[in-house]
Structure formats: C-alpha cells, structure tokens
C-alpha cells in the first residue's frame, strides 16, 4: 500500500503541472485549477491502489478533474449568491464541457505550462509568494515540503499560497503567457524566481534536509523546462548555463567539517564535468541568439571561464575582467564592482584593482560590507604593502558577522599573509 502511494505520488509529480496548467486555461483561475487537480489526485489515491495505475495516467487525471469540476460547479452554482461568481463559474463550466477530453496537442501543453509559469511569477505577487506558488504548482511540492525547504512554518507557507491565489483571482489576471514586449518585461521576474530557488538550495549545508538541498535540482529542472518552452530567449539559456555550472561545484564547496571552500581553493577534480558541459552548451545557445548577453548570460560566461581553467592559475582573468566590465555597464552594482576589482587585480596587477576600489570607496551600499576592506587588504598585500593590508584586514574582521571569517581575517592581519579571503 505504501509502495502504491509512492508510485501515485511519482505520477502526480510528473503530471501535476500539466494538469493544473490545462485546467487553469479552461477555468482561468490557478487556485480553482489547483483544487480541481487535487480532487483528481484524491480520486487516484482511492482507485489506483486497487485497480492499478491506468495506461495514460495524465489523461485519466485530466478527465477525472474535469468531471469533478463539472459536478462541483453545478452543485455550487445553486448556492452561490454573488452574481459575479456565478457568471465566472458558468463560463468555466461551459469551457470544461466543451473542451475535448482527449489529450491536448504538445504545443498547447507547452503554451499552458508557459502561462502557468508566468502566472505563478506574476509581478503582482511578492517574491516569496512567487517562489512558493511556483514550487507548489510547477514543482508539485507539498506545502510542508516548501515550508521545510524555506525553513518556514507550514502555516506561513499555506497562508502565503492562499493569499497569492486570492490576489491573482481578484486582479482577474488572465491565464496566458505574455508576448512581445510584455514578455521581455516579465521574463526577469520568472528568471529571478528560478534563481532564488537555486540559491536557497545552494545555501543549504550538507547535513540539512534533503528537500532543501534538492532545491538546486528543482531550480535546474525549472530552468531547463523554461529553456524548452522559450528557446528564443537568450537570458533563459544564460540562467540555465549559470545554474548548471554553479551546480557543478556543489560537491567541492565544503570541507569535511562543513567549512566553505572558496572557488580558487576548490578541488577541481570534484567539479561535475557533465554539468559543466551542459552549462557551456547552454551558454553557447545564449550566445548564438541575436543580441548581446544579458546579466545571467554574462555571469554564466564568467563561471564558464573558471570551469575551463584546469588549474586556478590557468584562469583567463583578462576575459573575466572584461565580462565584469560588461556586466557593470548593464547592471551597475557595487558588488559587481568589487568582483571587477578582484578580476582586474588578477589580470593586470593589484594597482589596477586598487584604483577601482578607490572609485567605489564611498558607495553607501558597501559601507557596512566587510568585503570592501577584505578585497582591498588582499590587493594591498599582493602589492607588498603589508602594513596597510593588515589595517584593512582588521577593519574587515570588525565588520563581518561570521565568526569563522573573523578568525581568518585576523589571522591574515597578524601574519601579513595567509589564505585568500575573496
């Protein structure tokens, strides 16, 4: 029985996004679509353990969901008082009854899925709501799973999901994927959600819950799905490339006791070559499309430079500095400038990096960030200016909230040397 349930859950995870998407197209409401899909799941859990999984479980679930929907609406329409609700549901009922019970064409499924992604990531919703709704409706994760993954309570996530669906319903957000200029405008909010999911998983440590660690794989899966649905969008491939390459380093970024290992100190033999190849291929797809690389594409190109280098000393820092330069132009940020300073220092000597740091010295955003003095200390040390470097390391040590990092920085301050801090 437990095995049967697990098998049904597996089918559910494969089918649920398509099911919800197809239903949402008919009823124009993702919340209602999800309820209907859940009804079908309940029916499957009742029937399949005894009858076995049907040959085409997706079609079975869809037919069941539609039948339940029709029943439910007929029943409820008798009690509904609000005129508007009745009109809405009558429209949905009509769409359901008219719709073909056979499986939709591939292209249609693709359109529905894309519409579902864009609806879940609608700019009306907060970032947290977008993330939760995407994992729920596209990832097929349960509310407790999302709660565990984001270290939040189930009640918080449940409420977030209810509110998000209500917001979409009340704003009468049409269930469709945007086109043309609107697509360009709304794509970043979708990509951001995928990126946030990945980073949440990336931040999880080895001992943590598998649901949390699996977020990286889930984000990759979402990114790859998106790349198949929107193959003409270079930034989608750029994001996939970035995630594949970052994921290739998952096994190398922690030491035996969980301490983080910085990129240049990582054992490159532990980088996953399959993901690197996949990442480089995705980057190539982004590069082959018309137009310059966007922020994700550029970050992927930088990650690819590191992936290409067999040893740290083989890194093409000149190219990395140029890529950071391009990134700073389209997405100016003091953090990018910090990285650019590191790259410049590696490519053209510490003075080049220090010159850029002087330019961004007064950035408010960096005023409390320990990375600024830490990077400056590193560059000063490389330039042989030991005393100045020690002062910077001490300053950085005072600013960091991370105990381990503080020790590292104080060590560098007193030794005037030691392991890299950036």
């Amino acid at each position: 029985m437990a095995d049967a349930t697990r098998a049904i859950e597996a089918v559910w995870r494969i089918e649920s996004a398509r099911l919800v998407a197809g239903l949402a197209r008919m009823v124009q409401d993702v919340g209602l679509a999800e309820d209907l899909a859940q009804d079908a799941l309940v029916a499957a859990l009742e029937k399949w353990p005894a009858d076995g999984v049907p040959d085409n479980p997706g079609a079975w679930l869809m037919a069941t969901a539609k039948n339940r929907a029709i029943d439910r609406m007929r029943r409820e329409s008798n009690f509904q008082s609000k005129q508007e609700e009745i009109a809405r549901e009558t429209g949905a009922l009509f769409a359901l009854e008219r719709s073909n019970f056979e499986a939709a064409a591939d292209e249609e499924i693709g359109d529905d899925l894309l519409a579902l992604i864009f609806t879940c990531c609608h700019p009306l919703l907060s970032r947290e709501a977008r993330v939760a709704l995407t994992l729920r409706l596209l990832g097929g994760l349960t509310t407790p799973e999302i709660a565990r993954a984001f270290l939040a309570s189930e009640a918080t996530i449940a409420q977030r999901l209810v509110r998000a669906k209500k917001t979409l319903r009340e704003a009468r957000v049409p269930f469709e994927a945007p086109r043309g200029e609107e697509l360009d405008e709304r794509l970043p909010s979708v990509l951001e959600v995928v990126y946030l999911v990945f980073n949440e998983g990336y931040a999880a440590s080895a001992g943590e819950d598998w649901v949390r660690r699996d977020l990286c794989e889930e984000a990759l899966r979402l990114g790859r799905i998106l790349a198949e649905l929107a193959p003409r969008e270079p930034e989608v491939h750029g994001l996939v490339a970035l995630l594949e390459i970052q994921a290739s380093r998952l096994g190398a970024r922690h030491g035996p006791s969980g301490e983080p290992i910085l990129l240049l100190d990582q054992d490159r033999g532990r980088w996953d070559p399959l993901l690197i190849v996949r990442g480089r291929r995705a980057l190539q797809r982004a590069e082959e499309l018309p137009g310059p690389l966007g922020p994700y594409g550029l970050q992927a190109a930088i990650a690819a430079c590191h992936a290409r280098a067999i040893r740290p000393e083989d890194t093409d820092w000149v190219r990395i500095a140029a890529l950071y330069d391009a990134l700073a132009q389209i997405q100016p940020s003091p953090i990018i400038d910090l990285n650019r300073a590191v790259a410049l220092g590696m490519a053209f000597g510490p003075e080049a990096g220090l010159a850029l740091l002087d330019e961004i010295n007064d950035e408010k955003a960096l005023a409390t960030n320990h990375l600024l003095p830490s990077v400056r200390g590193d560059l000063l040390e490389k330039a042989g200016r030991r005393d100045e470097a020690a002062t910077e390391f001490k300053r950085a040590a005072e600013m960091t909230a991370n105990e381990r990092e503080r020790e590292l920085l104080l060590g560098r301050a007193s030794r005037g040397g030691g392991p890299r801090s950036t």
Partner: protein
Amino acid sequence: MRFMMFMYPEIEEKDWGPKVDNVEEVAAMGRYNEELRKAGMLLSLDGLQPPSEGGVVSKVDGKATITDGPFAEAKEVVGGYWLIQARSKEEALEWASRCPAENCKIEVRRVFEMDDFPQEVQDAVEENFGG
C-alpha cells in the same frame, strides 16, 4: 538524485540499431526522449553500437584478457542508456515504464554521489584524483 536507465533490447545483433523498417519505433523513441528533455530531467543519453563493435576486458589476478564476448543471451546486452535527474526512485521507474520501446528490459539504477561515501573514502578519492 540521479538515475541511470539501462535499456536491454531483446534483439539479435543483425537487427541492431535504427533501420528503415523501424522508422516509427525510432520516431516514438525520439518523442519519448523529447518528453524527458521537456520535463527538465534528461542529463544525457546514448544509443550503443552492437557488441561486435566493442569487446570485453576480463581482469583476473591482475591480468587483463580481451575477448569479443561472450554474451549468453541477447537480453544481457546493453543497447543504450539515459542518465536522468529524478526526485525519487518511483519517479525514475515511472519514466522508465513510459518508454515506448517494445520487447526490452529497462533497468533503473540510482547513481552514487560523493556525499554517499564515508569521509575516508572521499579523502582517498581526492588524494588520487584531486588537484
């Protein structure tokens, strides 16, 4: 988690590989692979040439012997593989059962990840292969 799906086609060597008379079957496999790709789960896949295009290396007491086989039965020969990312064993098995190929066996195996090994083993691997 990753799973390797090994396909064992129950065919004779002479019938190996895509042919004019099984175009439909090949097209169905293409659609299946596309489904896996669209689901964001396909990491890599390959179809393998017949065993005669390769060989077998047997290692006994430190000595390597190369032979052409033997393979007792056709069904013991791997015809190809998929490497997929799945969220559970059940999901991988469900995908395998959706493969349209007829008369074959598909073995689904979970791939070891570095985290699965004890720390001592991880260290040993690192010493031998690491930078």
